[in-house]
């Protein structure tokens, strides 16, 4: 299925992926009582603060992420991906690390888990990072910066 006006969009795969992400967050919340916020859990696994989650659980979640991707990669016979150069990835990673630590969360914790419980902090954070994300891509495009290879 394609969306009228957006021939490159993948709405059904997107929706199915989103439902899986929602189920993953449900498993974490109802099973272990915690928010499935990736930045906080990754920080916890690395011993860089984060929540009071057990280290073993934090590591288990972090290891699960690529394992799940691997299953989809095997099922679909590969996954398309164009990444930026190592230098650009290094800069982006640093900014994402500082930003998510200061802002107490990322797309998963604020965007999925927080917005769905109508948390004011998460709604404000999500609107903010979406706005600066839009602005960053617009500014880079205006400057003619093509980063993906």
């Amino acid at each position, binding site marked *: 299925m394609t969306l009228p006006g957006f021939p490159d969009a993948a*709405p059904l795969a*997107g929706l199915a992926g989103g439902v899986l992400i929602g189920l993953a967050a449900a498993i974490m919340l109802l099973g272990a009582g915690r*928010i499935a916020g990736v930045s906080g859990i990754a920080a916890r696994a690395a011993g860089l603060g984060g929540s009071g989650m057990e280290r073993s659980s934090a590591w288990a979640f972090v290891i699960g992420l690529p394992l*799940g991707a691997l299953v989809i990669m095997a099922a679909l016979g590969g996954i398309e991906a164009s990444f930026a150069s190592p230098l650009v990835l290094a800069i982006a990673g640093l900014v994402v690390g*500082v930003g998510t630590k200061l802002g107490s969360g990322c797309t998963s914790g604020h965007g999925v888990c927080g917005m769905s419980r109508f*948390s004011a902090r998460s709604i404000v954070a999500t609107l903010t990072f979406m706005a600066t*994300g*839009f602005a960053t891509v617009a500014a880079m495009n205006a400057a003619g910066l093509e980063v993906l290879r």
Partner: protein
Amino acid sequence: MNARAIVSLLSGAVFGAGLALGGMTNPARVRGFLDLFGDWDPTLAFVMGGAVLVMVVVWRIQPRLAHPVFAQAFAIPTRKDLDVRLIGGAALFGIGWGIAGLCPGPGIAALVIEPLGAAIFVATMLAGMGFVHLAERKS
């Protein structure tokens, strides 16, 4: 491994599968969504919408449970204040997200898709988190 670690492994795996299926491990898809004023790709909105819809229902179920299935109590954020740190941090995160089209979840999940690129992103992301963590411990 205790029961919570197994639950966390399962949650991570389902999460990673969802990210990959939804196209979020491809920075081109994510930057396509962020390219609102150009050649916009709405796919990410479907991913986010699907995930939020499921969780809206789950947050209605959660209060009916005395405790999580495998833990003594729920650990859910309680803060309600909006501060400069939250907004500034989120603003910075959005800039980093826009630069390379990766946020923490897809960055880690993509370790099996684009190993070198994802590893560089995850390593500097942890360095950034570590920088803030250390700066705060000193103050």
